[in-house]
């Protein structure tokens, strides 16, 4: 799967209610960030967790979020990064 995003792209983490195994932390759901790195293509943990093969492999991105975007009481000069799978990201135009 060709990565959809590149470093510098502005993205938003999807808002979805899922009860299954998921590696997108709640504190980042719906938050806007910038792609910092394209980390490669990996099997889908949401499938692997249930003994399924995890295909097709998914592009994975390190996304950087300003602290003030994520939390109500912002702290200056603080950035949070997290590694988010492509199907949990949408483009911000």
């Amino acid at each position, binding site marked *: 799967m060709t990565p959809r995003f590149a470093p510098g792209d502005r993205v938003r983490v999807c808002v979805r209610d899922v009860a299954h195994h998921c590696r997108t932390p709640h504190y980042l759901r719906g938050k806007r960030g910038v792609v910092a790195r394209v*980390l490669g293509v990996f099997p889908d*943990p949401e499938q692997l967790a249930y003994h399924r093969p995890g295909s097709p492999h998914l592009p994975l991105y390190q996304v950087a979020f300003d602290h003030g975007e994520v939390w109500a*009481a912002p702290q200056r000069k*603080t*950035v949070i990064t997290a590694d988010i799978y492509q199907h949990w990201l949408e483009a911000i135009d």
Partner: protein
Amino acid sequence: MPHDHPHRHDDDRPHHEAGPHAPVNEAHGVRPESALLERALRELLIERKVFTAADIRRQIEATESRTPEEGARVVAHAWSDPEYKAWLLADAKAAIESFLGIDLKLTPELVVVENTPGRHHVICCTLCSCYPRAVLGVPPAWYKNPEYRSRVVIEPRAVLAEFGTVLPEDVEIRVVDSTADVRYIVLPLRPPGTEHLSEAALVALVTRDSMIGVTVPS
């Protein structure tokens, strides 16, 4: 539930279910039920020839053999050799395999993040305990416990202060949450006044905690 820790800011955040004394770390001893489960599973899996007792012993030894000193040697080498440092930052897995002579096939991906005078990284795994075990050995208990996992992404400076680390206000703190298959190691900033030190002497300056990012080498 009563809390005995101070709330330093608007605290409408959800709280942990258990009180502050829940024994989440391994200091507090093993319930008899847990010891039984371990022995039962181990004996059944050996009987079923899934693995042998020797396999378990070998695995325990392999885990014990990985210590933070491996990572410290990598850092000291990167401080001493600009070409190696560039390779480490571009392709950490290959650079580390080459320098330490180890096989990182069980680590899907490894990234070394460089601290600079303007940017300080600190690594965590809010969802569980992902950690670069193949290079640094087993993580400390605090890294796996709720206090660190909950607080480092929201109040990293306060958490670093608990480790005795206070950074200037104009230094960006970058909290790296290891949410997927990539494992992160911090390349700490080389302390000033160490230009004359040999690579071997530099190794002693690099602690496990400085490669997680909660402290700086001194």
